[in-house]
């Protein structure tokens, strides 16, 4: 196992080492000590390795991640897992705003709460938040799934495209063109499958979730809908 203590090494040195990993590397276990809220930890990794960060991180941890399995044993600052392509990021604490922003693939799990704009402009990522999410979550969400065990703030799914939202608790308000949709059996099955694949099955009853998505009324401009914006 490779260990980087960020009181002794820099984030640059850590990321440079992670970026040199080849597909056939045997160096698949990485431990990051004393992250102390540093930004861009494990950003731009493209390797099937496990990275355990022992503490809280700053902005953009795991940004543009490909294939890596990153665990943050603490909380994460703004934009954790932004634009991630694949792999998995698990934040054991809370996540600040724009968690999983523009993510194109992979899985982001937040054990605590996520702040505003969780999943903003998401493009295929799956996000599971076991606590609450803040306002404007899944804003302009294009694809992927956002699952919230707790509550959602104002303007959920504002201007949403084809992202699919599942929220168990109350929703403070829906954004433009976002509507509640029936939670049919196939949706429950989809949610069960997602939770099982992410190791979160049997923690919640999928029957308690409500489903939200696009009304698709704003997909092509119509002056009579101008008031919706």
């Amino acid at each position, binding site marked *: 196992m490779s260990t980087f203590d960020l009181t002794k090494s820099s984030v640059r040195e850590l990321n440079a080492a992670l970026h040199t990993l080849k597909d056939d590397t045997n160096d698949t276990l990485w431990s990051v000590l004393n992250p102390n809220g540093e930004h861009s930890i494990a950003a731009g990794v493209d390797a099937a390795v496990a990275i355990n960060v022992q503490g809280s991180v700053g*902005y953009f941890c795991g940004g543009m991640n490909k294939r890596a399995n990153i665990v943050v044993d603490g909380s994460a600052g703004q934009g954790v897992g932004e634009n991630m392509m694949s792999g998995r990021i698990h934040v054991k604490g809370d996540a600040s705003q*724009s968690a999983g922003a523009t993510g194109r693939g992979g899985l982001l799990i937040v054990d605590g709460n996520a702040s505003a*704009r969780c999943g903003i402009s998401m493009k295929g990522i799956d996000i599971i938040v076991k606590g609450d999410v803040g306002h404007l979550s899944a804003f302009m969400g294009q*694809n992927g799934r956002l699952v919230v065990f707790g509550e959602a703030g104002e303007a959920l799914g504002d201007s949403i495209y084809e992202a699919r939202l599942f929220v168990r608790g109350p929703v403070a308000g829906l954004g433009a063109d976002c509507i509640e949709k029936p939670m049919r059996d196939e949706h429950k099955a989809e949610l069960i499958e997602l939770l099982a694949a992410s190791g979160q099955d049997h923690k919640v009853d999928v029957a308690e979730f409500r489903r939200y998505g696009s009304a698709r009324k704003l997909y*092509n401009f119509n*002056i009579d809908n101008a008031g919706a914006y």
Partner: protein
Amino acid sequence: MTSHERNWVPTTPRKSATFDDYTLSEIRRASLTGIYDIRGGGSKRRLPNFDDLVLLGASMSRYPLEGYREKCGTDVTLGTRFAKKPIKLKIPVTIAGMSFGSLSANAKEALGRGASLAGTSTTTGDGGMTPEERGQSETLVYQYLPSRYGMNPDDLRRADAIEIVIGQGAKPGGGGMLLGQKISDRVAEMRQLPKGIDQRSACRHPDWTGADDLEIKINELREITDWEKPIYLKVGASRPYFDVALAVKSGADVVVLDGMQGGTAATQEVFIEHVGIPLLSAIRPAVQALQDLGMHRKVQLVVSGGIRNGADVAKALALGADAVAIGSAALVALGDNDPKWEREYAKLGSTAGAYDDWHEGRDPAGITTQTPELSQRLDPVIAGRRLANYLKVMTLEAQTLARACGKNHLHNLEPEDLAALTLDAAAMARIPLAGTNWIPGGV
């Protein structure tokens, strides 16, 4: 004949200067369609521009260089502040960001070919990087936009530089819209959205707000690309002094400043014509900000928005820019608005030189379209050659003017080489009115 008829004297019908023909037609169009006018291109009205400045050729007090013998350098290096691999260009005229989606794949390829032949860079746009463009572009700048359509770390690393787009001159403070009729299967796939819908591009980035956040974002992009790539910041000209100062504070290697004449693929007419300031008025405050921070020539300044010829290049560089970027002019060089398509422009209710419904995807020249029958009209090899010729002519023109001012490099041009022909230009560019030493408003 009645007394009234006997006393009637015909007068010339008088049209209102306020309600001119265009204004009347726009009111009729709006009332009929219920939607604002959307079009491509930049501001069309008369604005103070580089024609309002002249260069002061050498005479008794300055010594000129021989036009056909003595060297006048044109090279420029961009991204010297932090990047391990700054960009070295043979000429200070670059190709501005334009997206695949708004432009056809052939047009993007032609831009890459032309830029490479001339020794300069081209730039992606909203919608990601196409293999054709990367393959034909020796130096490619990859735009990082609020929508992040197509954004991925592999393309980021394939790029030669990264341009974070905060705004553009045609619409500072505005997002974008690619209307459904241009969303082909390929465009839809690259943007990960359904075919045929209007694709909005956000006006703000999704994961940072303000200069402090941006500094962290820039560092993330540097980390992902191992600090190799120059990071540009592109801003629309509105408050250039403060925007450039904040760009420097955020850690940019290069600032791209786009005046209101800069084009767009599709934006509201009201936005294009009424938001932002002309490039002529934006350069000096931007240079002042760099100078006040001790960063002039250390953080390079690229300016764009209505650059048309070598005179514009020379004047922009004399005002303190390190390079210019062209978009609309490059499209014209490829064949945009060519009179040879006049009959087809007429069918679309337009005329060569005025066609700007680029968002509709019916461009007879095959440039602003995704329709295969139209886009195949543009041969990327021939069009690329035309662009290269044009870029070389611009460079020769700029060199000619610089030599006349006694400069052995385009970057040696300076404000003292200029005079203004109008009060507006004198005040905006902070250049003395010709024949005087007067700058309205002071320096």
